[in-house]
Structures are given as C-alpha cells and as structure tokens.
C-alpha cells in the first residue's frame, strides 16, 4: 500500500521559487489558499445539500435565503458564533496587540529567570 496522503502532497523536482522577501509570507499564503480552497469545497457541499433538500420538498432555497433569526436566543447564538469565529481566525493580531501593550520577555529569558527561582 502506498501512503497516498503523503504522496499526494509531494514536492516536484527543482528548488522552489519564492517571490516575497520573506519566505514566511509565502508559506502562510500557501496555507491560507489551501484553506480558502477547502472553504469553497464546503460551500459547494452546502449548496448540494440545500438543493437536495429543495428537490425532496423538505426546505426550499428561498426559505433558506429569506431566513432571519426568529428569537432573541437565535440572534445571540448566531452573533456569538461570528464573534468567536473572527477571534479564532485573527488570533495572531490580538496576540500581537497584547504583546504591544505588555512587552514580554523571551521564553529563553524566562528560562534564565526560572533557573534562579
């Protein structure tokens, strides 16, 4: 049996070109684009489910498109989801701000500190 998961992501021959001064930018961009792709895949799957539900007469696409929260509780749950989702995606920005507010020692320095504790 071949390791199809690992092999699918194999590198091709030749040194990979990088286009930004810092390869880290490119690395993150590649991960981001892969996630963008998977989000598109998920969106298409949702679309399939909605269409199947409509074809089977369970829910119409119009019902889905026109849906608005029907209670305060639903409103809160949905807005909470957005809030948590955005916080999760933009975690690094928040952490950089926290660091800006409270400049931190490096972990190596902390190790040295702890060594004396």
């Amino acid at each position: 049996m071949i390791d199809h998961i690992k092999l699918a992501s194999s590198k091709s021959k030749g040194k990979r070109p990088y286009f930004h001064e810092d390869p880290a930018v490119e690395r993150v961009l590649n991960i981001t684009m892969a996630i963008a792709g998977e989000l598109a895949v998920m969106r298409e799957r949702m679309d399939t489910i909605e269409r199947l539900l409509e074809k089977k007469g369970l829910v119409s696409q119009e019902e889905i498109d026109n849906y608005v929260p029907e209670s305060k509780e639903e409103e809160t749950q949905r807005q909470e989801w957005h809030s948590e989702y955005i916080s999760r995606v933009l975690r690094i920005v928040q952490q950089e701000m926290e660091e800006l507010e409270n400049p931190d020692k490096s972990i190596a320095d902390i190790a040295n500190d702890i060594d004396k504790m």
Partner: protein
Amino acid sequence: MAAKNLPPVWNKIAKHAMMPETNHDERARYNFLASLNKHLAHVSQGNKMAYEKRVEPAFKAKNGRDIASVEELQEAISKDAHYQIWSSLRRSTMEMRQQAGRSIVLRQAEELRDKAEEFNKGKSTLVLDPNCKVPEYLLAVDNHLMPGSYHTELIEGDVTPAANYDSGIFVTTAGLLGRYNDGGGKAITSWVKKTYPDFAPKRILDIGCGMGHNVLPIAKAFPNAEVIAIDTGAPMLRYAHARALDLGITNVTFMQMDAAKTIFENESFDWIQSTMFFHETGGKSIYTIMEEVYRLLKPGGLTLHIEQPQYTEDMSLFEKFIRDWDALNNSEPYWSKMHDIEPIDLMQASGFRKEDFMQIGAKAENDLDDGTQKADEPEDHGRSPIWNVFGAIKN
C-alpha cells in the same frame, strides 16, 4: 445575470472508463482551482500595469536608461508587490492543482491499474519495453510541477501519472481544450483535412503522445491509417491505450520508445505529428529527434509540430518575460531555451529544405458551448490554447 466567462464545472469533462472516480468534494476542489486559475489570469494583467507605471520608471530614475534585457526586467520586477503576490498565488495554485489531482488518483491507484490491465491484457496494440530508458531531460525535472513526472511508477503497472494529467489539465486550462482535452489534436486534424483534402496517410506517427489525447482525433479522422503513438512513460501508455479502446479507437498502437532512436525503418511514415512535445525535450535531443523525424518520413510526407507561441522580434521585453514565467516557475525549463531556436533552423539542420518549411497559427477546437471560448478574455500566457504550428512536407 450570470458572471461572464465562467470556467465549466469539472463534471463537464468527458467520462470514459479510465477517468478516475471522483467524489463530491474532489470535484468541488477542481471547480475552485479552475476558477482560481481564471481569476489569476485577470490578476496577471496587473503585472503589465505595475511594470509600466512603477517598475520601468523606477529603473529609469535610478539608472538613467531603459531596462535593456529580460534579466534586468526580472531583477527589477521581482521587487514589485503586485508581481510578488500574483507569482506566489499562481505558483501556489499550480501546486494545489497537483495535490488535488494526486489525492484523487493515488487513493485509487490499484483500481485504476486493474481497469487498465483489463483493457490492455493480451493486446498487440500496446507494446511496452522495459529496456526503454527515460531520457535525461525528463529525469532532470518534473514538468509542470507533476511530482514523479510521466514515468514514475508508485505501484507495479501504475497509471496514476496519466490519470492525474487527464483529470487535471481540464482544470489548468479551465476547459479550453474541450471535454476530451483534445483541442490540439482536433485543430490539427481539421487543418490538415482542409489544406490537403486528398491527403490519405497510410501510416501516421505521433511522438511524445502522453496519455494519447491528441492522437485520437487524428486516428478517428483517418480510420484506415495505421497510427503509432510513442512515448517513454509506461504509465502514460498503459492509460492511453486503455482510454483509446474505451473510446472506440482501435487503429492506434501505443509503443514505449524514445523519439530520438526509434526502431522504425527509413521513410516509413506519411505523417509525423507532435503536440506540445518539443518544449519538454532538451537542447541536443531536439535536434536528434527532428533528424529522426526526417529519417522516418516518406518523401512527400507531412510533419507538423504544435508548440508554444514563438518569440518574435517585435515582442516587447515584458511579453517575453511574462511568457517565460511558466517555463521557470511552472517547471517547464526547456521552453525558456527553445525560444532561442528558430523552427526553420531546427528543421533545416535536420535535413528539411528551407522552401518546404511551413508555419501556421492554431487555436484549440472546443466542444464545450458554455462561454469557454470567448475572445474577450485576457490571454493567459502559457495556458491559452493559441499555438504555433511548424513543419514541412519532405521533398
């Protein structure tokens, strides 16, 4: 109102027995990548703007002169933010396309192998040669970032390189080659039929046939001809042969052979064809192969080669540079060198007469009818099915 020029959904691709099975999300992934490719063709237009508005003026201000070479241009534009993001997105998209294709075919490598064997076993129209050496120029690089290239066998009897190619080229070209990815073969067949209505080739050779997509329209148009298609990649040939049989084409013999040294007799073919082959060869081999074409062609025989557009003298430095982008960053390195060879010189060096040389432009024939052939799309350099065809009638 629908957005214009949307790429066709992947499931428009023609189904045949060898086409890998795909599930919902795999097809969706291909749909995303086709759209992303198309989108980036538009983003690519910003490179010219950035070059003209930022890169050129900055170079001139600094050096007191214009950019004088492609190398200087490369150096200057590589610092431009738009060029950087377009390049990195395009590279990333191509890597994702390979990953997407391989994740489809590798999980079913054994099933695909078994399907091919079902078609191929006991057939005299598939001739594999375990002693055939893969040419050095193919071992040196994985063309268009295809890990393992055309020849690597991950399992015995592997066909996955071809299955990956077949299922994914529709994505890279956003369907511009048609449902069978055979727009090149169809275009050349039509041109030959129209230009030489009395031409009735008895023996036809296709060199570097790959998965056989471009030789099938030729074989179909000349059903009484004996067609031989050669390639050095056994996985490609196994798949090509099974695919051809499933599509009902029985007059093609697929043989594993190096085009530079075939086993055929002198002057034994009426037509020798290659499609998008020479730019994946090498600087010496290109001459050896063309000499072999000359040797094999009957007097009065026709040879045609579909290739990437030629560089012309009036082509701007920028256009040359951007046309070369794929060669270097999509790993088709010989393409960047082949520009230095004039097809007429290549053919003359191989024995053809200057006055017999011909060169025409060609565009893929596409059987899709959903806006994929619109002319108002920007040319996606290195992707658009707009080609140079060169060749000769041997006299």
